[in-house]
């Protein structure tokens, strides 16, 4: 029974307030990332998001692969799945399919998703199952101590490429935007926390798979990697649009380049994605109408013992031999 008296409403609000989990409630342990590691900013943004969205910790799962970035679930006081290298996405898909009621987040590295897990990356985009996918792209293998990754810029000196990496780095945005069924693509930088937060929040509300490339600093192995963008705000373009994100006045003062970009325009999104200097930051593409594979698959899903019994009976009837020798 709902009590509409003033007291009842107040009590109800009170209870809601009680159930709200504060940021500390989502924190767990002390992150073991290096000082200045961009992963810390992602963690902070996520903990804030969970609080702001009023998510229940037990209804939320963070899935990851292996790498520095994939340690993130250990620092979230929610359910977490820190699996094997490269396979965060299919694990998350299985969880999503089994449990439409859970909030599913994926944190993965550039090696994890664009190298060993590359097949899963492309197919996950195509499946478009509802989840937020964050690739912490530090353009290096962090955990295994500095080997070139698929996104390392050409010439990157690493332990496996001491004379500089040989090939142009892979552009994850253009590749992602080339996949059928892509529905949400964004790029953020760990040092612009406001956009980082806004984009993750928009991604969380997107009805499909949202792919966020996070340009992530790794001071340990790539100390000067993003300096050209970090130290020169003119090398950054902030994307905005009335249907998408807006830029706060404070941020607008800091970053002089703003571009109004309609995220429903995939051709423009692809053009923007291929530009490295200045680097576009914000939502490149968003189409909320792309069908979700998890929904399609579960279209007629109501599992029950009765249904199982009925199906088995029907199938056994088809292939039955009655005692006595005639078909049932």
């Amino acid at each position, binding site marked *: 029974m709902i009590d509409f008296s003033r007291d009842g409403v107040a009590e109800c609000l009170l209870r809601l307030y009680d159930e709200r989990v504060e940021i500390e409630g989502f924190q*767990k*342990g002390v992150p073991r990332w290096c000082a200045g590691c961009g992963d810390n900013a992602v963690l902070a943004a996520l903990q804030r998001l969970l609080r702001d969205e009023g998510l*229940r*910790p*037990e*209804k939320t799962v*963070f*899935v990851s692969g292996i790498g520095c970035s994939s340690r993130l*679930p*250990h620092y*979230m*006081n929610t*359910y*977490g*799945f*820190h*699996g*094997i290298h490269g*396979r965060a*996405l*299919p*694990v*998350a*898909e*299985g*969880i*999503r*399919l*089994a*449990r439409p*009621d*859970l909030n599913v987040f994926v944190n993965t590295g550039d090696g994890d998703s664009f190298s060993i897990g590359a*097949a*899963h990356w*492309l*197919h996950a985009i195509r499946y478009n199952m509802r989840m937020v996918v964050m690739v912490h792209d530090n353009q290096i293998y962090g955990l295994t101590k500095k080997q070139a990754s698929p996104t390392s810029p050409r010439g990157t000196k690493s332990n496996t490429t001491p004379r500089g990496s040989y090939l142009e780095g892979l552009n994850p945005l253009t590749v992602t935007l080339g996949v059928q069924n892509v529905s949400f693509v964004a790029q953020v930088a760990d040092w612009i926390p406001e956009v980082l937060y806004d984009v993750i929040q928009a991604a969380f509300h997107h009805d499909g798979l949202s792919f966020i490339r996070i340009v992530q600093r790794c001071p340990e192995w790539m100390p000067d990697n993003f300096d050209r963008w970090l130290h020169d705000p003119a090398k950054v373009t902030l994307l905005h649009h009335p249907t998408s994100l807006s830029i706060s006045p404070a941020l607008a003062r800091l970053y002089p380049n703003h571009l109004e970009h309609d995220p429903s325009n995939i051709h423009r999104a692809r053009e923007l994605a291929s530009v490295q200097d200045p680097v576009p930051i914000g939502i490149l593409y968003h189409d909320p109408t792309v069908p979700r594979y998890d929904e399609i*698959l*579960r279209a*007629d*899903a*109501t*599992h*029950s*013992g009765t*249904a*199982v019994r009925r*199906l*088995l*009976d029907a*199938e*056994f009837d088809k*292939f*039955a*031999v*009655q*005692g*006595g*020798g*005639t*078909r049932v």
Partner: protein
Amino acid sequence: MTTTSESVPLPGAHPAGAGAQVTTVPEHVVEIISDSGEGAQRCGQSFGAIAARTGNGVWTVEIIPAEIQPPARSVAGASGNRVRLGSSRITNGGDAADLVVAFNEQVLLGRVHANELKPGCTILLESMWRAHRNPSIAASYAEAFDALVASGYRVVEVPMERECRKLVPDTRRGKNMFALGMLCSIYRLDLDLARDQVALTFRKKTRALIETNTRLLVAGYEWAREHLDLAFHIPAAPAAQDQVVLNGNMALALGVVASGMEVCSMYPITPATSASHYLSEIFPKVGGVVHQAEDEIAACTFAIGASYAGKCAVTITSGPGYSLKQEAIGLAVMAEIPLVVVDVQRGGPSTGQPTKVEQGDLLTTVFGSHGDAPKVVIAPSSIEDCFYSVITARRIAETFNMVVVVLSDASLATAQQPFPRPEFDPAWLAPPVDQSQVPEGLAPYAWDETTGLSRRFVPGQPGGMYTLTGLAHDTAGSVAYDPDANEQGLHARSLKLAALQRTLTTPTVHGDESGDLLVIGWGSTKGAIEEAVDRARDDGLRVSSLHLRFVNPLPSGLKEIMDRFGRVMTVEGNWGDRPDDRIIDESNRRYTALAMLLRSRYLVDVDCWSEVGGQPLKPGRVHRVITRKLGRS
């Protein structure tokens, strides 16, 4: 089995073939072979199903060419079915064929060269090739015909093409039903039952097509009645209980449904795929999902994700796919996520022999994945067992939070056999996803000291939040940096296997409880081994057999059984070194997989014999092995 035949005239006066002397036999092996695409497989399967409906014991074996479209009329291209039917229960494909229907002489020669025909076997051979406009085809036909007759085969030329043309323009689609009609007539099977079967076989096709096929069936039936002086009666003893006729892969798929699982993720691979085909057809009706993943690693990790989230899932594959899943299986072992993996074995290593049977994956499933990764391995030994094994597997997986592998093979996958119609039991189903509050202070890996068991926490359970990891972890699930915690985890995961082992019953001995020789097998070879043992016992040999369903853990009591026999040997379908090879001796001999397991576990001198020819094991082969082993020949 010796075929004792008696001749009885069929009652009633009929023209020509209808009045043929009917020979009563306890069993027959029948083959229908053609170029691939001509439908011999469908003919054989339907024939087997009709015989089963009549009450005969039946076992069908698919004859599969290695290529999808081998050249027409080629010796290696034989495609079709072997149907062994008998008065009592049939558990394997038997030895050599008594009667063969062949659509051309080349595919027939393939079977002759492979020694699949009994001396004197009756052959019904398509006669159109004799007058073929290509003289070399006509010549090769005539030559083969003469050679077959000279070798003592009873070759009957049948104008199947000519007769079918009266009804259909394209005989490549239709001759098979004509052949089915002939077989029904020869084996005196009920035509109405056959009509019924045709309607079932083509249930997804148009009405017109079903009618055409029925006309062809009847034409074949009548033609044989009129022209063939050939009739056999295999007395049928209809089972008291209702039966179902399925192949192993269908039984696996129905087992998935019956187990209450809701998610199957897979990647296509022969000979496992047909299980997923069938499951894809029926699963949505109960809200189940078949996800064809982008590869086997994804298929396995997808299933792991679903299981972790509370819905125990299955992934179905064969050898190469199994190899790809190994790392993920290790994760499930380490993190104690229930998971059912079905491995329908084929020839290996590498791509091996996709359509051929081999029992080569025993050790890789028992020991596979790096580090110590204990898991359960169940090997079904019959079609019926395929069904129940999946149900058992799901239950064990969720009770013990373990990976359970169901180890079937290419032989069970396509073989058909009637078995008692299962009676649905609600206890087969998985319990609902636990979403209850986790008691304060309970840890996700609070391993029980005795059993190693702990309670699984499922996302959604308040108070149960933890981060699952494939890294070594402590009872809280936190990454373990101290050496004791890692050891504690290894200890607990190993104990679980022992806890399960304690619940297993000792398998029963087939034959006497003691004797001169005990033959041990596992998986699909059960029927052939037991039949061979029966024959050898009829010869007066003191031999028994033991068949293992649980290959990991092994049930208790095996040592005691082995000790009651003078000698013990395994019969398997995986490679074992041949002791008579020049450079093989006891210091380097590689025993077959089960023999190796038994030797190391029980310190018993277990010998082994194996065959890796890719064909289902024949009872005659095993009979000879037993005879030789016991010093008779």
